């Protein structure tokens, strides 16, 4: 415990000395640093902050130091997170390499793959995207058809991925490909790393009900991929795929808890539906807002409880299975409440007639509908809980 206290003091001192003041302000979505071969920084402090954190390996605090990570224990990483939150430090880097690919490379990748990819993820030098879904393989992901045929030292890849977020900005993609079409569908899938700069790869953005989006379709036309880029054993990719989905769900479950939002259901309700004696005037709306805030608070407490259990070395048990489902359903409720409380002011699409914050909420409300579809639909999540946690029969 004394060690942890010392670590906390040192960490705080280092953060205070090294985190630029401008990086201790709430971060709007458009200022998220994603890294990559051609990184975008709106401000030199963003780069400075990323470089300082990456040099300590603190963009990936628990990864081993030999791969560029921080080499911290889970309790130390929790301390770092707490201290960063206490000082209001922005996350220096957001990336699918950190949240999704890295953890599975640590578990399933070979030494060369780890040496090659992990340090670049830590430093934000390569931006990754995820090639999972296909037009014909959504919830039934294992039905994917993108083919990879081994020809000597290379796989020849042909197929069509969809919902590949940020593929148009990404440098590399981790993709599920079919390497054996003759066996049971789960047994013929491999996990392949593909450089997006390879000839034959093309990404095209998709327009959503909420307008322009970060989602893409990605096409592979006779793309040559070195056989060494296959992670794990050939045809054993489904196990890796599922593990990566667990990491993805963990990061989506936390969707509602970024910086403290300036617009909340209660603030919108007071402003646009009326306030009386400091309260939301409409008792029905007020009750709905309280109901949402209570469920949300209980969910945040549950995430904290799981975290504390992990830090205490207790098995989190079945707890984490609910995060993706519950977190995304709550986020949808939040936006339904805000849009409903704003009346027609909450239904503007664009233009000068509307408050820009309200317009943003409208788009986010529409975008939130995908939360319970992407990364495993709510229905699939409930199936998983019923089967794995409750042991209900197929």
């Amino acid at each position, binding site marked *: 415990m004394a060690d942890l206290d010392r670590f906390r003091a040192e960490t705080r001192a280092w953060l205070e000395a090294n985190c630029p003041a401008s990086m201790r302000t709430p971060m709007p979505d458009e200022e998220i640093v994603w890294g990559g071969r051609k990184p975008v920084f709106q401000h030199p402090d963003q780069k400075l902050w990323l470089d300082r954190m990456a040099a300590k390996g603190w963009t990936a605090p628990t990864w081993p130091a030999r791969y560029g990570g921080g080499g911290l224990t889970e309790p130390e990483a929790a301390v770092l997170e707490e201290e960063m939150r206490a000082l209001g430090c922005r996350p220096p880097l957001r990336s699918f390499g950190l949240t999704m690919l890295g953890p599975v490379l640590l578990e399933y990748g070979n030494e060369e793959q780890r040496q090659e990819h992990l340090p670049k993820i830590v430093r934000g030098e390569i931006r990754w995207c995820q090639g999972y879904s296909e037009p014909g393989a959504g919830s039934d992901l294992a039905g994917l058809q993108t083919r990879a045929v081994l020809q000597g030292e290379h796989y020849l890849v042909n197929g069509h991925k969809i919902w590949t977020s940020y593929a148009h900005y990404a440098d590399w993609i981790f993709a599920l490909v079919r390497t054996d079409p003759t066996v049971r569908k789960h047994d013929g899938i491999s996990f392949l790393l593909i450089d997006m700069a390879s000839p034959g790869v093309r990404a095209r953005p998709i327009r959503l009900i909420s307008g322009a989006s970060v989602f893409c379709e990605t096409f592979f036309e006779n793309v040559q991929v070195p056989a060494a880029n296959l992670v794990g054993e050939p045809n054993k990719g489904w196990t890796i795929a599922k593990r990566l989905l667990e990491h993805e769900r963990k990061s989506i479950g936390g969707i509602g808890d970024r910086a403290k939002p300036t617009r909340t259901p*209660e603030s919108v*309700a*007071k402003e646009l539906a009326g306030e009386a004696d*400091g*309260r*939301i005037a409409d008792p029905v709306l*007020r*009750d709905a*807002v*309280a*109901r949402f*805030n*209570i*469920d949300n*608070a*209980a*969910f945040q*407490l*549950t995430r*904290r*409880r799981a975290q*504390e*259990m992990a830090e*205490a070395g*207790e098995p989190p048990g*079945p*707890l984490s299975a*609910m995060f993706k*489902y*519950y977190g995304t359903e709550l986020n949808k409720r939040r936006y339904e409440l805000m849009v409903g409380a704003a009346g027609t002011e909450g239904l503007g699409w664009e233009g000068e007639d509307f408050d820009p914050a309200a317009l943003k909420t409208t788009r986010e409300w529409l975008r939130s509908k995908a939360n319970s579809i992407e990364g495993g639909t709510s*229905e699939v*999540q*409930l*199936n998983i*809980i*019923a*089967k794995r*946690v*409750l*042991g*209900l*029969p*197929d």
Partner: protein
Amino acid sequence: MALTLSADARMVRDTAMDFFREKSPVTELRRLRDTNDADGFSRRLWREMAELGWTGFLVPEEHGGSGFGMVGLAQVMEAAGRTLAASPLLGTALIGASALDLAGNAEQKDAHLPGLVAGETVFALALEEGPHHAPHRIATAARQEDGGWVLSGEKRFVLDGHVADVLIVAARTSGAATDRAGVTLFLAPGDAPGVACTRSIMADSRNAARIRFDAVRLGPEAVLGRVDAGADVLEAVLDRARAGLAAEMLGSAEECFERTVQYLKDRRQFGVPIGSFQALKHRAARMFCELETTRSAVLAANAALDARANDAAALVSLAKAKANETLHLVGNEGVQMHGGIGMTDEHEIGFFMKRARVAEATFGTAAFHRDRYAALNGY
């Protein structure tokens, strides 16, 4: 404020789970009901609970307790909820102990706490006057006379009222019928002249009573806390009661849910276990999520009370609102998913639904606590 249990709290939990499973299964509540047991609980088991130290968890060491706190007592409440055990835990170990600890003077503590800790004195809070929880809607009046007090009015839904040795009575000493100010708490002997008690047989087979106070004379030493300022004490006492009750409800909900999931695995129709049907699976999975979030809320509320945290009151309303909704859901689904057998008195699942509704109405429905939560959070 930790959301994991200390080793000591875990030990209490294990002991309590074993205790109630062995000594007070649901069949014991059925026995109390079917034999029209005069006490409505087992005095023998209550003394055993006292010997285990549970009555003293909220009593400081200098008065014979351990001061172990709410998180520890919540483990006992949760275990009691698992088997729907009827006992004076809520009225005495939680409410009686809290009221004396928070507002009692030295004489009152010396007079009452030893008996409370020993499991010899049963307490009851005489508060409600209408069918809905309304802590400040108090018409029962106490007026000063000859240096003492004269108490008149009627209380209903007094938990353990008919077996109480000591009544904690909320009475109006000034102000209008719904004012927060002007409420005073009194300690009155359950058998004082002018106290008329009628037992209320509730759907959950647990103790409650209607009590009439007909010019009941009390000495000046009967005042608990300060005259006219009882609402603050009452609020603090009620918050402990709500947090403890929420823990009991969590235990009942967990047990009801586990029994229902087991039934989904065992019961076969159309040649397969009914738990293989997605319509039931998804409802079961949703209940699992609600139980987990409720567990976090209950733990947070009890820990916040122990830590005297600023947001303790809001966390208590959060916990009681969640416990109400979750036990309501799980109780209803328990009966529905058990089908016809769930409608029979012979099966135990219906006991959980009946207990659910009474516990929900006790010390505030979900709507009451949502209103309070919103007010405490400034909207």
